[in-house]
């Protein structure tokens, strides 16, 4: 498991249970989860829906690297993450990160590290569909002209 890209809706409880199963012999005392949910606004503009597109082979490779870095850097037992692709409605889960650790400080630190690094490094693009104009790729200074 560890890092997955999925085109089907993410069920947080399924992933939470899988994380607990993965943490060996119930030695984990604290679980920290980050979940990104589709919002109804972005930079002040009303969002109707959005779509995520992934360069899957590289996204999985980089996502696995990030989880391995988290395991090396923090005193945690397990870290897993999943990112959704395709068209998402408001309220759907775009990304889910879960960390299990014996002590909660490490779980918080590692979970935050993973989501920060995923957002910065993993090749996944987001296109927002607005109520007041054409869809746009998020985070891009401007479209290439050619």
């Amino acid at each position: 498991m560890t890092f997955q890209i999925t085109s089907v809706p993410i069920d947080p409880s399924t992933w939470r249970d899988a994380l607990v199963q993965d943490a060996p012999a119930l030695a984990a005392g604290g679980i920290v989860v980050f979940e990104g949910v589709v919002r109804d606004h972005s930079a002040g503009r009303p969002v109707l829906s959005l779509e995520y597109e992934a360069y899957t082979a590289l996204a999985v490779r980089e996502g696995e690297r990030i989880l391995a870095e988290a395991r090396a850097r923090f005193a945690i037992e397990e870290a897993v993450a999943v990112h959704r692709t395709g068209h998402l409605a408001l309220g759907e889960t775009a990304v889910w990160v879960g960390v299990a650790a014996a002590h909660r400080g490490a779980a918080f630190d590692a979970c935050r590290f993973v989501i920060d690094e995923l957002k910065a490094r993993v090749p996944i693009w987001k296109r927002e569909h607005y109520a007041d104009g054409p869809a746009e790729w998020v985070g891009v200074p401007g479209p290439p002209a050619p």
Partner: protein
Amino acid sequence: MLQPVRRSAEPPDPMQIRLVHYALFRDARGRDAETVTTTAATPRALFDELGFGAALASPESWIRVAVNDDFAAWDARLADGDTVVFIAPTAGG
């Protein structure tokens, strides 16, 4: 002494490079993927050859490159049969 200089100045053999496009590069090229025959030795040269360089200044500062499904440098040496992806700013999560 001049021979090595001449040899390196000769155009390299054309290579087949597979380009896979995502997000706004796919929008710009109008297709998911294409195979180009090119003498571009590096991703940077290929980027210019495709016409992106003229439109997008200083791509090194905000666009990344992948060769064969891993991140690569802009001045990496391309080989025949390589797959290249230009990675616009991402926004996962």
